[in-house]
């Protein structure tokens, strides 16, 4: 075990000498034997504090980070176990895990203080919120004191197990495969055809695929019928990430910014849409890019290259520090770049009116719209509650235009948020927009 050890003495009992002298002095003056004997008490405690042996501790430390690869905003559970492998009990062990500076503890505490018998372990459990980047956990500080506290040894023991947390926009956790095809670009038409979801049956025509024959109808009636499925179309989807300064807000120290969360959601949307065969374009609003009006613009395309380019754009959006020269012009230019019939998906925390106004404009131009809004507002203050109310009003404005709105509440995993949204959609089928260029 490679570890740094420092030892220091304690000055806790200096006052006891003064007390002993006072007792002795008053005892002599007042001729009080009891008081003279009482002078022994502080001296006994002084001796107890000074005479304790320096601590020799043999400690084993293991750390477990779960998950060690996570997208932004994901709660990451860290478990640090300290075991006393020595033959002597330790009367005072204090452990402080070295949480990476960029991360904040959301639940639990990275600190513990306890006693440890030989072979006994103590566990520190806490939860941090993942932020984009690679975060190294340094060895924890372990401070061991002697019985009287005179001798203090501080160690930085080597740790076995997890030593880093990798947070990436395209991290696989949590899995999105199940929900990905539902997110955006699921374009169903009223026309029957080939697909996966049952639509209707019709009379068999010569040349129909054998696997589309409805064998149950044939068994019942002896007539051949062909199953029609909901026809799915490849769509063009443009993902708009709101990376303006106002959107780089965080709900607390050590938490990912709203732009990071938006970029994470957009990354998964790109992957799922490309897997489903759709064409995907990307626009980053609010940074000074090389596209028209300072937009970062990727024209709609398919394939792995497009995915890599989109991922680079999202990383750039999450890292951006500079602002855009003219935001309104960026939104205006975007409409000119989007091909006719494309869907627009906005990823924004909706902290001001601009994104809502943009969605209203898109819908008025006949573009189907989707809004995914990560919630980064803390509502434990009156100001926060007011901001939250304003944000909900903006989301309602978007919803009123017919756009599908997803409120990604803090602490809810993205797949779960999507599941809730689609469950709500199923309950309210009349409000669901459909078709390419669906009506507002």
């Amino acid at each position: 075990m490679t570890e740094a050890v420092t030892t220091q003495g304690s000055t806790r009992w200096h006052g006891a000498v003064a007390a002993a002298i006072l007792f002795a002095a008053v005892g002599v003056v007042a001729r009080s034997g009891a008081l003279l004997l009482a002078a022994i008490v502080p001296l006994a405690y002084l001796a107890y504090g000074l005479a304790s042996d320096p601590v020799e501790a043999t400690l084993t430390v293991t750390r477990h980070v779960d998950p060690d690869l996570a997208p932004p905003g994901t709660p990451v559970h860290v478990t640090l176990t300290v075991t006393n492998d020595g033959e002597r009990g330790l009367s005072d062990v204090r452990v402080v895990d070295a949480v990476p500076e960029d991360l904040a503890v959301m639940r639990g505490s990275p600190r513990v203080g306890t006693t440890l018998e030989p072979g006994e372990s103590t566990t520190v459990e806490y939860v941090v919120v993942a932020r984009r980047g690679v975060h190294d956990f340094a060895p924890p500080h372990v401070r061991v004191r002697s019985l009287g506290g005179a001798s203090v040894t501080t160690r930085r023991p080597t740790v076995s197990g997890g030593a880093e947390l990798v947070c990436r926009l395209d991290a696989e956790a949590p899995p999105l495969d199940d929900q990905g095809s539902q997110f955006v670009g699921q374009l169903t038409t009223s026309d029957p055809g080939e697909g996966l979801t049952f639509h209707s049956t019709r009379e068999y025509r010569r040349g129909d695929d054998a696997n589309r024959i409805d064998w149950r109808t044939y068994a019942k009636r002896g007539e051949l019928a062909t199953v029609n499925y909901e026809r799915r179309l490849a769509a063009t989807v443009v993902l708009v990430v709101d990376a303006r300064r106002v959107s780089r807000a965080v709900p607390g120290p050590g938490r990912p910014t709203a732009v990071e969360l938006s970029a994470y959601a957009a990354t998964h949307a790109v992957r799922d849409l490309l897997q489903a065969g759709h064409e995907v374009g990307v626009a980053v609003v609010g940074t000074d890019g090389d596209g028209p009006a300072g937009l970062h613009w990727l024209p709609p395309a398919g394939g792995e290259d497009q995915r890599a380019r989109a991922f680079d754009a999202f990383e750039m959006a999450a890292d951006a520090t500079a602002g855009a020269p003219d935001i309104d012009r960026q939104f205006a230019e975007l409409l000119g770049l989007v091909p006719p019939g494309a869907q627009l998906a906005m990823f924004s925390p909706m902290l001001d009116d601009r994104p809502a106004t943009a969605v209203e404009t898109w819908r008025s131009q006949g573009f189907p719209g989707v809004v995914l809004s990560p919630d980064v507002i803390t509502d434990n203050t009156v100001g926060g509650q007011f901001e939250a109310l304003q944000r909900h009003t903006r989301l309602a404005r978007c919803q009123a235009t017919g756009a599908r709105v997803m409120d990604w509440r803090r602490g809810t995993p993205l797949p779960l948020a999507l599941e809730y949204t689609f469950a709500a959609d199923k309950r309210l089928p009349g409000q669901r927009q459909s078709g390419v260029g669906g009506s507002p």
Partner: protein
Amino acid sequence: MALFGPRLDRPTALGDEGRPRATSLTVASLLVFVTLIVATTCPWAYSLQFGGSLVPTLIVPACASLGQFALGLMTLTGLVTAGLALLNRERFASLFIGQIIFMPPGTALVGGLGALLFLRPAYGVFFTGFALALVALGSTWTDTTSAESVRPALFQEALTYVAILLWVVLGALVYLAVLLVRGTVASSGQPTFSLAMFLAFVFTSAALSRIGLRWLPIRQLAPRNRRATVDWALRKVRRLNTVVLLASLAGIGVTVALTLVGLLPILYRLVPVLPTVFGLLVSEPVVVAVFGVGLLTLFLGLIALALRRMTRPVEATGNRLLAPFVAGLVLTLGMLPFTFSLLPIPLPIPVVLLVVLFGPIVLYLVGGTFVIAEYLSILPARAGGPALAAGGLVVATVGAALIGLPGPVVVATAVVAMLVWDVSAFGLGVTAELGHIPETRRLELFHAVVGLGLGVAVVLVVGLLDLARTALAGDRAAVLAGALAVLGVLVLLLGVRGYVGGEAVD
């Protein structure tokens, strides 16, 4: 950890700079409590010789004594501690209640202990030590054991004291004025003078009503659909009030003018009933009725003003200036009569007056001494509470020895002093290193049990030594031998300390 009721410490108390961990502080508090109870209620109290008349009424040699001096001491120290905590707040209500429960109990505590120190020094030392320990521990719980916390409380207390004096002086002046007016009216018996006085009363009452009306939220409380009517009525009342003010003022002027010209005597001759009527105008029922209107309006206005102030968003500076004056009024009206109602207790009036007059000043000086001690680093900045509590118990140990309590009790008090320091300082260290969130109860309890075990062992050993001392040697020889032994141990420990310290650093 909230023991009961609302928390008195601020949320900052839970930070790394706050009070010690709850387990350690609970152990320390329990030790002090048990020691005080044991020292003041155990059977040996029966054999104590009380000479004066004060102490026997306070320390009853039975379990009932718990309900006497010890409980009284704990109640007063508890109130002082709670008041100290509330005086660090910003809301008017907190500051007001803080004033009410800080100064009177503090004055009583200082006065009582001062009297005890003067009359029975040994008991004074004993109970002063315990009072110090209790206040220190209490304020450690509420995280107010620092100069930053005590200073604003002292400032508030000084303002309240000044306010009480001002209210007393004002009350005395009003009382004297009433006496003077009544005496003059009664002795003069002149109708002209009676008329002038009546007009002056009307003017004063109208002026008071005007002020009270300004503060009363009559319009705000009226239903919205009746606002216009209420506005009209209020305008009418104000106009009437102005007319009364001007008319009474003019009436005084006219009365003076007619008197100077000499027309009034002629008028009295023409209308013989006038002197009788003017005389009736200054009769008590009329004066009370006239003044009652003004005073009642002013009183209601003041209540409205106070309610408005209490419900207004926190304005710390304004509240800190206003609360002492309102508390001063309440204390003047309520506490001073209460204090003087205690006079049937056989206490000389000068003593009561001295306590009431100088008690707050002594309380201020005691607090000031604490602040200066912390500024001079005599008390550790972050461990002031535990240090003061331990110091108080050291003083109590001396007092216990001087009273003549049995040796084991004296030694046990000394042990508790060391334990309070040990456990509290340990809790502070844990707080500074780990904060208040992690679970550390096992660590704290283990440390407390080790310290307590050592204390019990020390008490047993020293008890045996005490037995040997009293059995084998004469009292004087034993004292001399003990003093030499302690001196020797001190010298030896200094050397050992250097050795161990050097080894630890190496």
